[in-house]
Structures are given as C-alpha cells and as structure tokens.
C-alpha cells in the first residue's frame, strides 16, 4: 500500500477570487504582510502496489484525466 498526495492549484495566470477574498480578510484582520493568497485543494490517495515510479505515473494519469482541469489548474504529486 502506498500513499500519494496531490496538490491542485489554479494556474498563476488565472484569477483566484477565493484567494483574493481570503487575502482581503487577512488584511482586514491586520495581517498586512499577506501579500497574495492562492487557494487550492489537497487530495490524498491510498494505492495498491509498491513501485514508486508506477504509482507516480498512475497518479499523473489520474490528474490529467480527472483530478485537475488543466485548462485552469496545475497539479503537483507527492508520494508519501
């Protein structure tokens, strides 16, 4: 059994209204140091198998097919 963690974030060029709202809220709370906020999601997957590179390629395929919309999102995979 292996675990993978996928981080999905909006591409840098895409406006992130939720991130913007969070930044405004943080600034309102006095956290002036918060200069930019981007929100994303984390997806944890448990996978059968123990071959690191096989898992890497299968999770990449999952990202391309379903987990991320590559029109607007980037993804990053960590094998845990």
């Amino acid at each position, binding site marked *: 059994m292996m675990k993978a963690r996928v981080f999905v974030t909006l591409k840098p060029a895409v*406006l992130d*209204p*939720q991130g913007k709202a969070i930044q405004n809220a943080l600034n309102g709370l006095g956290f002036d140091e918060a200069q930019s906020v981007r929100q994303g999601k984390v997806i944890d997957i448990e996978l059968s198998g123990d071959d690191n590179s096989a898992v890497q390629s299968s999770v990449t395929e999952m990202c391309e097919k*379903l*987990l991320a*919309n590559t*029109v*607007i999102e980037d993804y990053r995979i960590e094998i845990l």
Partner: protein
Amino acid sequence: MKSAVIVFPGSNCDRDMQVALREVTGKEPQMVWHGDSQMPNVDLIAIPGGFSYGDYLRCGAMAANSPIMKEIVKQANEGVAVLGVCNGFQVLTECGLLPGALMRNASLRFVCKDVHLTVENNTTAFTSNYQQNEPILVSVAHGDGNFFAEPETLNKIEGDGQVAFRYCNADGELVARANPNGSVNAIAGIFNEQRNVLGMMPHPERHSDKAIGGTDGGRLFESLMGALS
C-alpha cells in the same frame, strides 16, 4: 426531431428539459441514464443542469468521465447536435467538446436571477429563430458560471464567431452590471467550431412557458425543431 436527455446522479433540471422538449417537439424525449452504454439514435442530445456527482471535485468533472460521455463525444464529432445547459455546459468543457472552463462566480456566491442575453450569432441550428443581437430574457442559477479561456483560445472563440450569447442589459448593451458571474467578455454561451455543440450557463428550458417567466428560451428549442426535423 428526436431528442434525448442525459441523466446523471445529481442532475436536477432533467425534468425541466424533458418538459420543454416535449412541448416544442410534440414528442417524448428519451431519458438516458448515465450508466447506459447505448445512446439512442437522436437528432439532439441535451445535457441538463444540476449538480452531477454533487459538483464534488469540480463541477461536471466526474460526469465528463462517465461511460455515456464517450458515446456522446463520438456522436458530437459525427455532427449530432448537443446542447449543454448550466451543469451540462460545465460537462462539455470538462470533456473537451467545448473550449475554456467555468470557474467560481466572481462574487463567490450562487446567483439565481433573470438576465438578458444578446444573440451573437443567429446563423446556427440553435439560434435561427432569434434576431441577430436581439436581447432575450432567460434566467441563470449557478455558483460556477464564470467563463474563462486563455487569451489565445479566447481570440479564437471570438474570431471564429463561436460566441453564442453574451450577458447584456434590457436594451442589449454590454454593461458590467449585467454580467452576473464575471465571465470574460460577458460570455454566456459558446459553440464548438462546427456549431453543432452549444454550451450555455442560462436556462432556456425555464423560459419556455408563458405562465412561468416567458418564452424567449423556448425559441431556442423551436430553432432546433426547425433545423433538425
């Protein structure tokens, strides 16, 4: 005109679409459950609004990967007319039949209201019963209708006349206040290159009955009826 309405778990405008199609075509549309692998032979495939798979992960993402969609993509590529409304539009962008993506509304809130649209291209099977640039009244109801495309894609959509509808005011003017969700260039609906696939956030099926809001939406189905019968 024979039509089919695709039903995913969580679709909730399937009945509304069924009623609108029945009223206009005089024929009962076939309701096709997402798990069916066979697509009946029809002239129009309608993907209705709702929250397919709860809108979990991303709106339309899981429906776009369901088995029936493979068959729909194939038929669309063969020229069958496909209409995606609201969640259906999201499914069509997710499965690649239409360019761009639908993001969270700029207000970050769900919005349900009547809106006006300008008809940007009345030379298609979907829009021939409208006047060019005519403002029509329909309603929106969505949380993720903010149309986005990369500049290059957007230029192509605009240059090729793929924009079907834009949000406008009652006089047909493109003013910022009339854009309910922050869509780029106020885009409310787009065609594919071949003009046989239309995705739109507003709900024509909710404006197909004069007792309920008006009939501007119904004219879209009448256009199809004229073109596909």
